[in-house]
């Protein structure tokens, strides 16, 4: 007949696992002395614990490792950024950012381009009655945003490809 798992079982396992305080342990041992049934349960569970600890692992087939390695060779390679490639990419990002900043400072992007939707599309008058607003695009702003994105990208590459591997290697050697 099966019994449901309850609080007294919980106490029994806590006792076997050494998860009781000294007071709780004393109380439990006292109840064990008074109840031969509880004593029997503890002994049975102890025997089971001993048997479970002797459980052995099951070995896979002898060709297991070879099969895994050949499946890895067959599957497409995952891309990882090596330190050398990371540094090259970082240099590229820095050069692009530097050139962009130089160009902005020399005033190449100072002028703004106005996009007049009324003349470009030819829709006004034909389909739309009211004139469309003209949109002014500042080259300086666009380049500044590109520089900002480059800087964020640069920091990510610096962390992933240079700093993290460097500190991990140093930790491994220390």
């Amino acid at each position, binding site marked *: 007949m099966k019994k449901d*798992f309850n609080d007294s079982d919980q106490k029994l396992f806590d006792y076997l696992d050494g998860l009781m305080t000294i007071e709780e342990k004393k109380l439990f041992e006292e109840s064990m002395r008074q109840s031969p049934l509880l004593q029997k349960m503890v002994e049975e569970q102890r025997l*089971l614990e001993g048997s479970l600890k002797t*459980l052995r*692992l099951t070995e896979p087939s002898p060709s297991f490792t070879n099969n895994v390695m050949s499946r890895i060779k067959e599957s497409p390679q995952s891309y*990882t950024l090596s330190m050398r490639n990371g540094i090259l990419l970082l240099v590229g990002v820095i050069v692009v950012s530097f050139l962009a900043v130089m160009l902005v400072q020399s005033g190449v992007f100072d002028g703004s381009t106005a996009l007049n939707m009324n003349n470009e599309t030819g829709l006004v008058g034909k389909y739309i009655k009211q004139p469309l607003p003209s949109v002014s695009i500042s080259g300086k702003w666009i380049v500044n945003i590109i520089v900002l994105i480059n800087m964020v990208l640069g920091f990510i590459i610096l962390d992933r490809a240079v700093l993290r591997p460097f500190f991990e290697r140093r930790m491994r050697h220390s």
Partner: protein
Amino acid sequence: MINDPDLGLIIRILAGEQHLYAQLVNKHKSYVYSLALRVLENKSDAEEAAQDAFVKAFKYLAGFNRDAKFSTWLYRIVFNTAISYKRKQKVKMQSIDNVHIGYHQDALEKNDKKRFIEEAIAKLNEADRVAITLFYLQEFSLEEIADITNTPANTVKVRIHRARHRLAEELKGILHQEALSL
């Protein structure tokens, strides 16, 4: 930070020494296979799921959080892979009844304690079987088992206790039947 003995190998594998992954496979294959077998209860499915888990782990090795323990991360992949195999298996099982083949084959290794324990474990439900396997075979802590199975630690504790209780009951039943058949 956890001082993981596998970390050195992982760094070298990620730096391009792919062949070193075989060392990691050799080290963990028995645990990985045993865990998959506990979930799937079928040797060929367990072998395939275990291989799949190792391939997945290799594929995502670059994303492995090095502050965590590699074995915990790997066993989580194994557990999830085995569970997805189990779902497929359930569909197949409607027509082919191949569950417990592994244990029936094991039953050939008769008259030892292991056989009775294995029989009793096979009668547990999947979640309890996995929890008890991780608890006794690999001696993971409750927190680590909770992490692998994506279950609260308290639930894992209850599962392990319940599994131990049921195992004792099952063993009594099995041994009683054995005694009667003598």
